[in-house]
């Protein structure tokens, strides 16, 4: 079965191809079928492969299959090959299963949209590109998936393209991630010129044997790869595209945030972790960027009033946790958090979509919602479970176990790490605060917007399955104090080496402390938004607080700064160069020849006497040359 691995990305690609070729002529039932079944089959195939892999792991806990040689130019022979190890297996399972649930949800959510067929074509292509990215055995093939993901995100964010704002958001996402992609591409060039191969496993082995620990070239290569990862995973300083990416349909946001796209950067660093271990300075940068991002994004999330933008900033923040984990070498924790995050973030987005689709005018502003707990129980419970998991409520949520793992390993990492750990801890508090702020405002209080319509099974089922996963997904890896299950880290051991030993009593103390922190965040949210004290309301209206809230609302003003520093100077240069200074040279040549043409045209008088005169003059000149010589 494992030799049928190629089917996993092939099925969604086939689905996308069918939908594209049919060009919207299929009836919507057929579109739904062609849109969902390929990903479902992919998920089933992945599950069978996964079970087979765990029951009887291939030698070396990795499976490589070269499908064909792409091109052969001298020593450059990039393979179109697949590589399956526990890392890519986990990612693949999450992408296909979560992707399937999101697509199933979309069949009802997107019903009646005129771009129904187009939507599923893009979504299938998206999943396929992400699977190529995950399974590629070769960095060049990985790059194909990487760019495919970027393309699909552009198409889907700008899905409702009739609205110019959506097109702008899509363009922003594409351009900002493109900055990262350029870094990644240069990184690939550096790797190839120095190591002579782009096949990931040989490349990692060669790098480890050729480059000394902390060598400059390893730092350069990893820094360039990091730029690519920052762009795709929306980390500081390239995080600005993600909140605007909310312009797309909600299932798209779910797919981008949970399964595909933003986790590509995490996967890239995890996949190339051998290189990062050679460049400790860059690895430290990864941790620092992660810590900064999670902190910044959490405060931005705290002040949003669009429900999807809250979730967008929370994604940026949670990916920041993954980067923090990667930076401190807690590879397994990063992937574990990726998995948990995929479940609860998909759940949150789908629940948010379930809320907005039932509200009149698809209301997104949380302050115009309220009192929905009784009216939309399905959405309420799923959103609550997702929020609990995001806030890392102790014991019962997947988010708790993954976040604990990151925090404890960050603590165990030592050195200058208490700052990073503190950032993670403070953010855990803010995370609980902002998500339960949303919960309390949206679901309690008095109703402000009328409710329309009802849910079908295709909405409820994905929410239910994801709710279950968001709870039990964490039980594959628990701290020592809570049963000490290590299924996940043992499974990942063949990729990342043995998990670090936990510190016993300290760990338990940290665990309790962190649990109290997230609980107190929920408590504070309850105090502030369920029992609003007049003094708090007054405080939020004081000028300095209003200014800070506007600052946080704008995502710490990154957009404004980029607008001033990059966009406007660029537009200024473009405006100066509107007539293309370089082109002027060529226009000048054309203009000069045209001028000469006009000059020569004057000689064509059509009068033979003049022609004869010129002839005579020319002859005289020729004879003069002969005479003078």
């Amino acid at each position, binding site marked *: 079965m494992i030799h049928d691995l190629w089917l996993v990305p092939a099925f969604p690609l086939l689905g996308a191809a069918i939908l594209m070729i049919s060009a919207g002529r299929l009836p919507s039932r057929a579109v739904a079928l062609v849109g969902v079944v390929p990903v479902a089959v992919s998920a089933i195939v992945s599950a069978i492969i996964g079970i087979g892999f765990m029951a009887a792991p291939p030698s070396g806990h990795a499976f490589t299959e070269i499908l064909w040689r792409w091109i052969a130019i001298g020593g450059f022979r990039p393979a179109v090959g697949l590589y399956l190890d526990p890392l890519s297996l986990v990612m693949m399972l999450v992408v296909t299963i979560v992707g399937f649930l999101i697509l199933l949800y979309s069949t009802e959510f997107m019903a009646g949209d005129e771009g129904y067929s187009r939507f599923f074509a893009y979504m299938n292509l998206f999943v396929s590109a992400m699977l190529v990215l995950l399974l590629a055995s070769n960095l060049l093939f990985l790059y194909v998936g990487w760019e495919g993901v970027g393309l699909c995100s552009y198409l889907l964010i700008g899905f409702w393209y009739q609205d110019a704002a959506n097109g702008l958001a899509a363009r922003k996402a594409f351009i900002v991630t493109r900055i990262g992609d350029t870094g990644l591409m240069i990184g690939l060039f550096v790797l190839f010129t120095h190591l002579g191969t782009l096949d990931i496993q040989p490349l990692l082995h060669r790098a480890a044997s050729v480059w000394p620990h902390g060598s400059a070239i390893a730092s350069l290569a990893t820094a360039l790869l990091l730029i690519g990862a920052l762009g795709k995973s929306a980390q500081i300083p390239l995080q600005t595209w993600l909140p605007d990416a909310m312009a797309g349909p909600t299932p798209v946001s779910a797919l981008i945030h949970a399964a595909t796209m933003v986790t590509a950067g995490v996967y890239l660093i995890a996949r190339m972790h051998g290189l990062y271990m050679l460049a400790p300075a860059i690895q430290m940068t990864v941790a620092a960027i992660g810590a900064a991002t999670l902190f910044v994004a959490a405060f931005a999330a705290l002040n949003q009033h669009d429900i999807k933008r809250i979730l967008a900033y929370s994604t940026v923040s949670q990916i920041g946790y993954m980067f923090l984990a990667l930076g401190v070498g807690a590879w397994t924790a990063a992937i574990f958090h990726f998995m948990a995050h995929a479940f609860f973030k998909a759940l949150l987005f789908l629940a948010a979509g379930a809320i907005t689709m039932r509200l009149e005018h698809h209301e997104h502003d949380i302050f115009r919602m309220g009192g929905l707990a009784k009216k939309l129980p399905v959405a309420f419970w799923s959103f609550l479970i997702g929020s609990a998991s995001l806030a890392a409520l102790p014991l019962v949520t997947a988010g708790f176990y993954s976040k604990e793992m990151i925090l404890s390993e960050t603590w165990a990492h030592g050195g200058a790490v208490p700052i990073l750990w503190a950032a993670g801890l403070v953010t855990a508090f803010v995370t609980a605060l902002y998500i339960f702020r949303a919960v309390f405002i949206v679901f309690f209080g008095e109703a402000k917007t009328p409710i329309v319509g009802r849910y079908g099974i295709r909405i409820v089922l994905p929410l239910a399955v994801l709710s279950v996963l968001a709870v039990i997904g964490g039980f594959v890896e628990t701290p020592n104090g809570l049963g000490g299950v290590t299924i996940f880290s043992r499974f990942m051991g063949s990729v990342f080496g043995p998990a670090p030993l936990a510190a016993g009593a300290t760990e338990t103390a940290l665990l309790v402390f962190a649990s109290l922190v997230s609980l107190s965040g929920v408590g504070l949210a309850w105090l502030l938004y369920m029992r609003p004290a007049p003094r708090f309301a007054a405080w939020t209206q004081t000028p300095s607080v209003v200014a800070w809230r506007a600052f946080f609302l704008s995502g710490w003003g990154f957009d404004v700064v980029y607008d001033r520093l990059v966009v406007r100077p660029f537009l200024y240069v473009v405006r100066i160069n509107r007539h293309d200074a370089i082109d002027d040279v060529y226009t000048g040549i054309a203009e000069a020849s045209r001028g000469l043409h006009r000059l*020569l*045209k004057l000689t*064509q*008088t*059509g*009068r*033979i*006497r003049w022609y*004869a005169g010129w002839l*005579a003059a020319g002859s005289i000149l020729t004879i003069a040359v002969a005479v003078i010589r």
Partner: protein
Amino acid sequence: MTTIPLDHVLILPVLLFALGVIGVLVRRNLVFILMSIEIMLNAAGLMFIIAGARWGQPDGQVMFLLVLTLAAAEVSVGLALIIRIRHRLTTLDSDAADLLQG
């Protein structure tokens, strides 16, 4: 046979040729232009004769005969063209036939 200096003999075709050039350039009437061309051709033939006489060879006269033939052909075609142009433009002004200007 004669003792005329060669320089004096040679200056005659040069003068005739130059006069022909002036005629072509000055006159606007196509018939006069054709006449001027005849003058120039005749000057060229004269040069051949002088050269043949200088070396006492018949080749110069043969070439003169060829020039003569050429002149005859040229005049017949040229005059036919003049008749045609006169018919078309109702004038013999060469400056009026400037349809080919750029």
